[in-house]
């Protein structure tokens, strides 16, 4: 690396830091708060249930700890805004666990495909390969190493397990779309729903095709994302930060996006 590019790197970082302070670049929190009522996926009774997030107070400026407040935590790995590593699925069992994923893959550009209007009309709508191809016609082919995020407005239901799970009717990719994305150069696929598959994904063959094909191809999943409506279709930088759990299949995580444009109501469209 030459001195020139070190300067460029440093200039970029100081530029980013300054732009954050000035508000030219914003950080969007793509994470829902984690609570005991955070919705979790419900599986048929023959399978092990996914435990809810639980906080247990250890001390609160009292005899258990006069100067400190702290809690113990307990949760399933795939609870709230969370990350799916390839080993989460049987097709990815030879792939990476969550602690093995290189940092460079966790800081990457994101595309946002907007199906909000369709999801409002039909909460069981599907993301098709044709949708993705049309998006690529408009914005260019999905660049290798980028994320594709599906925006549906589903995050607005997150305060209610009932609305969020909606009797297993929520939007997601169909079979052909899952195959198309698995064959593409993306690093992973993210969604606002409780998991990366469609609500009816368990009834397809193979069941849960987004998990089956994407994780099987060594790609990653992001679920229960918030605030995707604040992101542009292209140009955001996503930071996905799962806990570095030894051998973990995934993790509740914090996710941020850096965006360069304001999307308030006063701003110009496009």
């Amino acid at each position, binding site marked *: 690396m030459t001195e020139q590019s070190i300067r460029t790197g440093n200039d970029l970082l100081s530029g980013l*830091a300054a732009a954050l302070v000035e508000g030219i670049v914003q950080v969007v929190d793509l994470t829902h708060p984690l609570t005991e009522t955070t919705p979790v996926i419900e599986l048929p009774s023959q399978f092990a249930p996914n435990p809810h997030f639980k906080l247990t107070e250890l001390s609160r400026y009292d005899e258990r700890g006069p100067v400190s407040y702290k809690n113990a935590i307990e949760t399933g790995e795939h609870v709230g805004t969370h990350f799916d590593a390839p080993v989460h699925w049987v097709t990815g069992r030879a792939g990476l666990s969550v602690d093995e994923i290189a940092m460079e893959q966790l800081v990457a550009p994101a595309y946002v495909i907007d199906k909000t209007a369709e999801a409002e009309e039909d909460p069981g709508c599907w993301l098709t390969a044709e949708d993705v191809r049309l998006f690529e016609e408009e914005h260019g082919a999905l660049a290798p190493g980028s994320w594709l995020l599906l925006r549906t407005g589903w995050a607005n239901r997150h305060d209610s397990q009932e609305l969020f799970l909606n009797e297993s009717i929520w939007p997601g990719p169909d079979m052909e779309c899952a195959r198309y994305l698995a064959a593409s150069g993306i690093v992973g696929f993210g969604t606002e729903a409780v998991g990366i598959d469609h609500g009816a994904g368990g009834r397809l063959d193979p069941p849960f095709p987004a998990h089956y094909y994407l994780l099987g191809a060594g790609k990653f999943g992001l679920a229960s994302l918030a605030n995707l409506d604040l992101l542009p279709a292209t140009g955001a930088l996503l930071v996905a930060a799962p806990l570095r759990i030894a051998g973990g299949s995934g993790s509740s995580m914090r996710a941020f996006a850096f965006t360069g444009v304001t999307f308030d109501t006063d701003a110009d469209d496009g």
Partner: protein
Amino acid sequence: MLIPEAIASALAEGALEAVDLSHVLSERTPMIDLPEPFAQAPGWSMTTLSAYDEAGPWFYWNSFSGSEHMGTHFDAPVHWVTGRNGEELSTIPPNKLIGNAVVIDRTAEVAADPDYLLTTEDVQEFEQSHGLPTDGWLLFRTGWSARHDDRAAFLGTSGTGPHWPGVTSDCARYIAEETSLRGYGSEQVGTDAGLAYDFDPPYPMHHFLLGSGKYGLASLANLHRLPITGTLLIPAPLRIEGGSGSPCRTIALIASSNGG
């Protein structure tokens, strides 16, 4: 090109690097031992829910439990009684977490003296040479993270323990009250020295830093890979509602120094 796009390209081309400052979380993650009357915090524990078996034929997943303050972790102001009216974890906006970071290196001094304490003068001298970033982070590099896999060495309990480096009481007060820093991070199990229970006030970094509404980061890894100035630090604690802290994936963006 928008700045986030330029950052993405520079990462892809190798002009920028993303460095992981987080240790792996496992049952071997060392936990702090607190003196009486403090309640001990539980260590990391993981239970497999299914592993491509009858409990879930297509999938492998786990549940886990532990403490908010374990492994590479984040301290929110409400963690300490002096910050009890301050922010809890889920209400901290991300633009307050992310900022420039500078690194003060005392690796050699700590190798000679595990009870080494950073002083106000040390910080002032550093400030004169390099400056301290407004709303940014000061990271204390000591080489301590090399001990992370050896619990006794990490907690300094082999002799009359607990022995690990930290800051003097006045230095904690200075960082908290007289600088425009937003946070302080260290490689040790906590932001205070091993013997800080006996300082005045006890645990002065927690006392002053969190009391000033600032943030702490502990058990950081890979600080030796960071430049003295020029790091963009991205701490990413879980967004626990009412949380006093959280295990925290921590990412540093730096200009690449070795071939892209």
